[in-house]
């Protein structure tokens, strides 16, 4: 028995030590440029293989073919071959954090604030600091992406990922069925705020009921609150109670003088909730807004066949045009705010390099191609010319090859996840001046006062955990007008305070002061 125990103990210790050694190994690449591969120019004979974990929906059938083509090109151009590990978004969200936590080797991975959280893994030392390597190995990209974006992705002054440069910031508003608006005599250009929309919803309800149909007025309310009263989310998670006012919007007057405040305690929140509660009471929301919102396929279907008049979205240039093509009726957009660029806006998608990567220089060169090379950008987004699309003019592609849109083997809606749409050709459903539209949008974007500030949640993680639960309990039902705000907002605020909302706010303002002092 004793012997057996000793043996078992020995095995256990050996196993433990190997684990230690393995984790030790992954931790050694502190100084990335020391990977003695030689400089980027002279290594064209030597092929480097880069492991790239990518999240995109859905995984296209012809991915392998396209990557083969891509490898042909990159082998020639920068001496790199891609070992492409692609997962659909839902899979990636579950698997990638585990792979990183387990110390799996990779060179490049997709990260963002909605999957495989960028800040979280920067905090865990998973990504490499590329501040100094960038100008050296990806100069074109470094110059091409505006400084505000680089500032936004900085954590403690260092850059850990290359952001996807598309529209700058986010703009909230309402997409609506413009054919129906015309039919009912609604002038959407008068809609500037949420309160203006009540009359529109009333008209829709009255006229559609008179015609014997029951058209749902508006959906998508789970995102509408921050569009109705935009604020700067200082924690990077807009639902957490730590907001900053953006002077250009002229809202949150009752919070004046506070750099960081609890947006749920504001007059604006009460007004918003009261308005949407009124909508729900009047039957404009279809009875069960929370569950209706969660089923977007059903929503799109209803919108296309005319039983839903409008919904709230975060808008990007060209969306209304491409929705017109896909929905079979006219689609218009009424903005509720100018675009707002804040720290989290740059976190929609980034490509990060592993802190354990042996080829950070090559990885950056490859990311540079994704962002600047026309051929690579179009290939990775639309596939192979003649097989997956036909070129239309210089800048557009037609993907209807055999007549169907979805069945061509390689077709991505969210091509910006690969880098930037600016070096990718556009689908013909977009207007041909799309790049100008993007430019206009980006020029009109308001840069938030504290752009570049990232909040380190570690000191208040306990409170954040508790507050997240409180918000999940009250937020969705209040913000979709399901419950009476006069009764529930006071309870919501009490629960927030009981779980340390004040600690969170004071921690945010401390860190914010520090950030502003060091600026």
């Amino acid at each position: 028995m004793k012997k057996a125990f000793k043996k078992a103990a020995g095995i256990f210790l050996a196993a433990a030590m190997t684990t230690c050694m393995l984790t030790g190994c992954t931790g050694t690449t502190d100084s990335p440029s020391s990977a003695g591969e030689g400089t980027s120019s002279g290594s064209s004979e030597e092929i480097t293989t880069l492991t790239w974990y990518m999240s995109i929906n859905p995984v296209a059938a012809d991915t392998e073919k396209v990557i083969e083509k891509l490898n042909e090109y990159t082998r020639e151009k920068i001496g790199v071959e891609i070992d492409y590990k692609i997962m659909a978004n839902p899979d990636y969200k579950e698997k990638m954090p585990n792979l990183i936590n387990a110390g799996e080797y990779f060179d490049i991975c997709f990260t963002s604030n909605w999957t495989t959280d960028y800040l979280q893994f920067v905090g865990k030392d998973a990504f490499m600091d590329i501040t100094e390597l960038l100008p050296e190995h990806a100069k074109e990209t470094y110059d091409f992406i505006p400084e505000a974006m680089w500032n936004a992705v900085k954590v403690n002054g260092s850059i850990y990922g290359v952001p996807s440069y598309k529209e700058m910031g986010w703009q909230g508003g309402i997409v609506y069925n413009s054919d129906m608006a015309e039919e009912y005599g609604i002038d959407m250009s008068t809609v500037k705020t949420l309160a203006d929309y009540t009359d529109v919803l009333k008209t829709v309800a009255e006229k559609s009921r008179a015609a014997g149909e029951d058209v749902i007025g508006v959906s998508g309310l789970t995102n509408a609150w921050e569009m109705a009263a935009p604020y700067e989310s200082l924690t990077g998670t807009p639902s957490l109670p730590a907001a900053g006012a953006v002077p250009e919007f002229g809202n949150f007057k009752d919070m004046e003088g506070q750099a960081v405040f609890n947006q749920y305690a504001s007059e604006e929140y009460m007004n918003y909730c009261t308005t949407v509660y009124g909508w729900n009471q009047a039957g404009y929301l279809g009875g069960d807004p929370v569950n209706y919102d969660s089923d977007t396929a059903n929503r799109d279907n209803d919108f296309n066949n005319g039983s839903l008049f409008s919904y709230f979205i975060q808008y990007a240039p060209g969306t209304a045009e491409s929705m017109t093509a896909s929905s079979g009726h006219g689609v218009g957009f009424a903005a509720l705010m100018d675009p707002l660029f804040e720290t989290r806006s740059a976190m929609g998608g980034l490509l990060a390099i592993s802190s354990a990567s042996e080829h950070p220089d090559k990885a950056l060169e490859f990311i540079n191609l994704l962002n600047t090379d026309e051929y690579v950008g179009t290939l990775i987004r639309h596939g192979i010319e003649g097989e997956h699309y036909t070129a239309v003019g210089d800048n557009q592609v037609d993907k209807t090859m055999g007549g169907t849109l979805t069945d061509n083997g390689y077709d991505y809606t969210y091509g910006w996840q690969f880098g930037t749409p600016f070096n990718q050709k556009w689908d013909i459903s977009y207007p041909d001046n799309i790049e100008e539209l993007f430019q206009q949008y980006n020029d009109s974007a308001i840069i938030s006062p504290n752009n570049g500030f990232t909040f380190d949640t570690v000191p208040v993680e306990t409170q954040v955990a508790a507050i997240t639960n409180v918000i999940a309990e009250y937020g969705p039902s209040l913000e979709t007008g399901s419950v009476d705000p006069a009764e529930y907002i006071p309870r919501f605020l009490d629960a927030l305070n009981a779980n340390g909302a004040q600690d969170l706010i004071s921690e945010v303002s401390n860190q914010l002061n520090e950030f502003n002092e060091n600026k």
Partner: protein
Amino acid sequence: MKQSVNGTALTRKKKGFWKTFKKSLPLTVMALPGLVVMFLFRYLPMSGLLLAFKRFSVRKGIFGSDWVGWENFEFLFKTSDAWTITRNTILYNALFIALDLVMAVAMAIGLSELLRKRRAKIYQTIFMAPYFLSWVVVSFMAFSLFSVDDGLFNHLLAYFGLSGVDWYSDPGKWPFILTFFQVWKTVGYSTVMYLSSLTGISNDYYEAAIIDGATKWQQIKCITLPCLKPMMIVLTILAIGKIFYADFGLFFQLPRDSGPLFQVTQVIDTYVYRALKETGNVGMAAAASLYQSIVGFVLVVGTNLIVRKIEPDSALF
């Protein structure tokens, strides 16, 4: 079990270690794969428990990360909902254990008394079927009953001229709904367990009882139930060990994550999930799970101790 233990103890005294070893070699070899697998998948990963006391860094690894003491456990107790989640977890599970025991035993006896065995098999299969459904599927079945717009119940209410109920924001109804679905889903499985031990009861007892003129009820009370008792105790002790683990699917999927219901649907598992899905803190997740396991362990050992005091023969260990 007991005999074999005594047997080896005796032989050891007589023949020494090697003889015993040789004799039990085939058995040892047979057990070995299981032991190795158990060691690899149950004991080796326990070193990960260290994470509960660390701030995890990918680069530093599990063993190299910094110690933070009990900090990771704080979020479980510092919330104003600590009482709610503990109460919900324990009371629901206690109720489920009691109901499951009573219903499953009653159904098992009922099924075994059915004269036509073919029909008993059919019923058994029907009761068992829900056990294989995923909670996600069940949640959609429930949604088709409770949906405000299109739900069966609201249509029925409308048919009788009553106004519809907003099921997903009325906490008062959910303790019953949750209990119903839990029992509906799991009772068939437990019934089969009891049925299998019912078949092990010798017919001689019943024949003797019938000759003595015992009624059906007397037979059940004096023969069936006492014979089922060991099985009941084992299953209950095992269930009590899991009393601090709530069924995530039941409490998260069935109420469709509806905020107004949290007072009656928030349990420790859903709380931890909601708290950590944003921050993804590995250490806090490990802390929560360690806490659950320790409470479970204490409860199993405690219950077993009590059982051993009252009825030594039925104790698990």
